C-alpha cells in the first residue's frame, strides 16, 4: 500500500504561512500533480512528505502509517530534485547504487538492480561517467534511476523537467508517464507548468498561497474550474462581467454592462440579480464574417493576430471595449482573418460557464 495522505497540514516559516491546513489523499499508483505559481506551497508539501521538514500542525500518512518523527531515510521514498542533486564525486553507476549500498544489499544484487535501472531509463553505456560529463537530459535519467532502484513506495518529483529544452521535456514527459504506469508506483509531481500537469497527471491539485483551490482530473479542472484563479492558471480565459437575468435547468443568462445577452451552459449556484463572471476559453470560440444563429455572438474587430503553426491566435476588440482572445486551428478551408477586419465572435452556451465575481485573483 502506498497511498499518501495529508490531514490538515500546516507549515509556517517565521511569519509566513507556507502551507495552510491542507488536506489531500493521493491514491495508490496514482500520478498526482501539485500545480501552482511559485510561493504556492507546493514544494513545501513535497518536502513535508519526504520528511526533510516537519509540519507544524496536522498529520502526514504514507501507506496509512503516521510519519510523525520518521526521518527521510526510513520513509522508503524516492526523490528527484529540480537540480537532480547527483553526487559529483561519484560516477553515474555509483550514484544509482548508493541507495542499495547504504541498505547493505549484497554486491551481486546491487549490480543486477543497477544494470536494470540503467536499462529502464535507457542510459546504458553511461555508467562510468561523472555527472559533470553528462548532459542535462542524461543527468535527469540518472536521477530517476537512482530514485527508482530502491523500489520506493512513493516517487516525489520537484519540477524535474524544468531545466530541459522543450523537445526533450516533451519526450521525457512521455517516458516518465510510461515508466510510472509500468511500475505502478505512486508519484507526486510538483510543477508550475499547467501543460505539464495536464499531460502527466491522473489528478491535479491547484494551489495558491498555501491552500488548495481545486483537486480533480485534468479535464474536470480545466473545463469546470471553481474560481477565477484556477480558470486563469489552467489555460486562458475570456472574461465577461454581468448580472444574472434568467435561470433554468440547463442554462443561465447574464447581461453584461454593455448590454450583451449571454448564455452559459454550466453555472455555480447563482441567483437572479447576482453578479457573475462568464468565462469562455479561446479554443471554444468561432470567428466568422457572417452572423449566425449561435446564441452567444458579438461583433468585433481583429486588432492582433499571431501565427503559431498549429493555430492562429486572434485578439479581437469588441464594441464594448472588451478584448477577446481566440485560438483558431489552421485548416485549409478556413481562410485567415486580416488585421482590422470586422467579424463575428461566437461560442456555444455549453462551452462557457459562470464563476463568482471576485475582487482579487486568488483562491
Amino acid at each position, binding site marked *: 500500500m502506498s497511498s499518501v495522505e495529508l490531514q490538515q497540514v500546516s507549515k509556517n516559516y517565521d511569519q509566513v504561512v507556507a502551507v495552510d491546513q491542507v488536506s489531500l489523499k493521493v491514491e495508490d499508483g496514482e500520478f498526482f500533480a501539485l500545480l501552482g505559481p511559485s510561493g504556492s506551497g507546493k514544494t513545501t508539501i513535497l518536502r513535508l512528505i519526504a520528511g*526533510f521538514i516537519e509540519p507544524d500542525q496536522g498529520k502526514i500518512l504514507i501507506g496509512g502509517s503516521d510519519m510523525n518523527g520518521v*526521518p*527521510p531515510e526510513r520513509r522508503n521514498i524516492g526523490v528527484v530534485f529540480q537540480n537532480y*542533486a547527483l553526487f559529483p564525486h561519484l560516477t553515474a553507476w555509483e550514484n544509482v547504487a548508493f541507495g542499495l549500498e547504504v541498505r547493505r544489499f549484497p554486491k551481486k544484487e546491487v549490480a543486477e538492480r543497477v544494470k536494470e535501472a540503467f536499462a529502464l531509463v535507457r542510459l546504458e553505456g553511461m555508467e562510468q561517467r561523472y555527472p559533470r560529463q553528462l548532459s542535462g537530459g542524461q543527468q535527469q535519467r540518472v536521477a530517476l534511476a537512482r530514485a527508482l532502484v*530502491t523500489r520506493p513506495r512513493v516517487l516525489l518529483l520537484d519540477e524535474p523537467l524544468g531545466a530541459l529544452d522543450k523537445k526533450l521535456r516533451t519526450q521525457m514527459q512521455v517516458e516518465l508517464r510510461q515508466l510510472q504506469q509500468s511500475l505502478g508506483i505512486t508519484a507526486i509531481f510538483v510543477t508550475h507548468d499547467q501543460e505539464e500537469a495536464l499531460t502527466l497527471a491522473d489528478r491535479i491539485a491547484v494551489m495558491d498561497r498555501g491552500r488548495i483551490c481545486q483537486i480533480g482530473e485534468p479535464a474536470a479542472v480545466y473545463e469546470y474550474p471553481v474560481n477565477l484563479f484556477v480558470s486563469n492558471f489552467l489555460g486562458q480565459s475570456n472574461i465577461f462581467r454581468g448580472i444574472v437575468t434568467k435561470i433554468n435547468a440547463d442554462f443561465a443568462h447574464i447581461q453584461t454592462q454593455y448590454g450583451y445577452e449571454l448564455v452559459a451552459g454550466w453555472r455555480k449556484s447563482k441567483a437572479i440579480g447576482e453578479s457573475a463572471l462568464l468565462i469562455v476559453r479561446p479554443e471554444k470560440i468561432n470567428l466568422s464574417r457572417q452572423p449566425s444563429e449561435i446564441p452567444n455572438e458579438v461583433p468585433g474587430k481583429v486588432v492582433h493576430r499571431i501565427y503559431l503553426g498549429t493555430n492562429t491566435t486572434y485578439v479581437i476588440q469588441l464594441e464594448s471595449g472588451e478584448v477577446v482572445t481566440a485560438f483558431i486551428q489552421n485548416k485549409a478551408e478556413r481562410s485567415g482573418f486580416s488585421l482590422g477586419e470586422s467579424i463575428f465572435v461566437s461560442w456555444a452556451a455549453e462551452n462557457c460557464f459562470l464563476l463568482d465575481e471576485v475582487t482579487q485573483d486568488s483562491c
Partner: protein
Amino acid sequence: MSRAISTIASLYALLILVFLYGPLVVMIIMGFNRSPFYELPFQYDLIWFQKLSTNERILTATRNSIVLAFAVSILATFLGTLAAWAMSRYHFRGKNILRILIIPPITIPWLILAVALLLMFYWLKIPRSLFTLVVGHVGVSLPYVILIMSTRFQGLDSSLEEAARSLGAGPFTTFQRITLPLIIPGLVASFMFTFAVSFDNFTLSHFLAPQGVSTLPVEIYTSIRKGFTPEINAISAIVFFFSAILVLFSSREIKFVG
C-alpha cells in the same frame, strides 16, 4: 605598443620575484658556506648540517614546533569545521552576531592577542603550560578555519545531503559518504594554513610557552640575541624545502576540486 607593455610587465614580475626570494635564496646558500661568519668567497661545505644533527636545542625546538603545529591544526580544523557546519545548516539565536564577530580577531596584532591571553590565564590562575600554548594557537587560527570551511559549506548544495537521506542514509552515513568527500579540499586547506601559521608563530609561543619549552621560531630568535652560527641557515633551508613541497602538493589538491 602592447609589446613594450608586456615586456615591462614581465620585468616587473621578475623584480617582484627577486624581491621576495632574494633574501631566502641568500639565506639558503649561506647554509652551505663553510665560514661561520658568513664571509665570502663561497666555499661549499655541509659542516653546518652536520653540526645541526647534534644540536639538541634546535632539534628539540623543531620537534616541538612540528608536534605543536600538528596538534593545533587537527584541533582547529575539527572545531572550526563543526562551527562552520552549524552556522551553515542550522538557524539559531545569535547566529548573525557570531558571523560578524568572527572577523575582527583576524585584524588584531598577535602581540596584543598574546598579552590578552596571558592576562586571561593569569586571572584564571592557569599557569603557562602546553595547554595555554595550544589554546592560544588554536584560538587565533579558528577564524581562518571557520571562514574557509564556511565558504566550502556554502558552495555545498544542501540538496545533495537531502538526496542521500531520501535514499536511506542516516545523518552520520550522509556526512561520511557525501559531505566529507566534498569538503576535503577545504579541510586540507584549513589544516595546512593552520599548520603554517602555528609553525611560524613567534609571538604567541614566546608569550604563552611554559618554561623550558621552546619552538623553532623562539629558538632562532634567542640564538640571534646570543650569537649564532649558520646552523640556523641550515635548519631554515630544511624547513623551507619541506614547506615548498607541502605548498606544491596542496595547490594541486585544491585545484582538482575547484
